[in-house]
């Protein structure tokens, strides 16, 4: 949870951690993020967390990280973790976005699949159009995804059809972040505490169309 003094406190995922430095990747979408963009070096903000359940870290499986738009941000943090602790078995990265300028961290993540809706980079279409092919090609054993809910819904179906587990980090408005206030409830699940990363069994409740 990131506190922007005098404005609000919002849930953000961590983009990278280097020593004592925590890196956030913030898209300007509302008042709080606009204020974050306006900060100067030396300005101070508050941080609390991290809370809830994180990604698993399977180092003996072929895993595909699928980022939809800005959803790549928490997966970048996970990718760094692999680079540091499991350099011999890095996950495969697939990136999708609306347009080329929304594709983040390409150079660093070296994605095997890039898809844009308008075809300005990589293949044209939705990431879900090309993912079944990639799953077969690399013989993936797990999907770890973050992106818009519709994308997660489709990827959940693809994972089920492919018979492999899926983990997805979901987004929801949060207030307390610690499982008390109920602001982030989806069905009977709390995104802050039961999630934000949900595994196949929980996604079965959250992704059914």
């Amino acid at each position, binding site marked *: 949870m990131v506190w922007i003094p005098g404005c609000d406190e919002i849930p953000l995922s961590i983009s990278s951690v280097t020593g004592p430095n925590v890196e956030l990747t913030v898209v300007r979408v509302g008042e709080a993020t606009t204020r974050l963009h306006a900060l100067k070096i030396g300005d101070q903000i508050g941080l609390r967390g991290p809370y809830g359940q994180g990604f698993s870290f399977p180092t003996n499986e072929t895993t595909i990280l699928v980022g939809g738009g800005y959803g790549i941000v928490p997966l970048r943090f996970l990718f760094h973790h692999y680079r540091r602790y499991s350099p011999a078995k890095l996950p495969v990265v697939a990136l999708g976005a609306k347009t080329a300028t929304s594709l983040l961290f390409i150079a660093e993540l070296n994605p095997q699949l890039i898809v844009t809706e308008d075809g300005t980079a990589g293949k044209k279409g939705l990431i879900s159009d090309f993912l079944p092919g990639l799953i077969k090609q690399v013989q993936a054993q797990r999907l770890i995804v973050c992106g818009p809910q519709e994308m997660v819904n489709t990827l959940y179906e693809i994972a089920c059809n492919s018979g492999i587990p899926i983990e997805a980090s979901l987004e929801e408005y949060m*207030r307390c972040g610690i499982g008390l206030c*109920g602001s982030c409830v989806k069905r*009977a*699940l709390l995104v802050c505490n039961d999630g934000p990363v949900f595994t196949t069994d929980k996604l079965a409740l959250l992704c059914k169309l």
Partner: protein
Amino acid sequence: MLEINLCGMRLKNPLILASGILGTGNDILRRVAECNIGAVTTKSMGLVSRPGYSGPSIVATDCGYLNAMGLPNPGVKVFAAELARWDKHPAAVPLIASIYGSTPAEAAEVAAIIAPVAAAIEINLSCPHASGYGLAVGSDPQSVEKIVYAVRQAVQIPILAKLSPAVADITIIGKAAESGGADALVAINTLPAMAIDITLRRPLLGNITGGLSGPAIRPIAIRAVYELYKAVNIPIVGSGGIVTGEDAIEFILAGATAVQIGTGIAYKGLTIFTEIEERMRRYLQQERISLAELVGLAHRMSL
């Protein structure tokens, strides 16, 4: 062994989910209801929706939490539609609807809209951080009596009045609620409090001040229940910092018929209800005493 009758409601144990905690929708309340609990309470609802305050809305502090959510809710009509799916079977866990209103007429209107889907109404007379609502009306005995009376005229189901400890004498407010027609009292809500970040040199809560809950306020709550037990003739639901079975038993001894649990979930998760229930059961067995006999037992002056 732990079954109780609270104002005509049959509870399988005296543990109730406190208002403001998790009670935003049918599915999450159902999940809590499956956790060895006697009854659940919704988040407080008003006539129209409120967005709540800007964050931060919660701060962890020594032995508790400070919060200033600002009564966020979608309004009673949306809540009534959401909770229409609640199972009203006699064996199901009773649903208590928490309501607020700035005037007697407003509170009565909210209560009348939600009453068809609820087993009881809890009137929030004590939120310490919503101007014009809660404590703003709950600290004046005449206002309290009028609000409770108006709700009494509007609904047939039991009414619980949730009181604030931030008054000179809680028994005066408790008696006012009783005269207004409350079937039970709930004591206590959170205490007005605040915290300041020394690095940023600013109040931590978006609303600057908020309400303190958790173990820090338990002794205050115990005293409030103890005093109310002597002052009124209606049952008291104890609330404030209950984390363990021992805490719950302490409230019963002070005079509570049932207890509410909220912040404790932050420490123990939803298994807290099972933990407390088992501890209470063991205590009753070991002490060879019934739950009913335990209520108010600390008031004995001699052995």
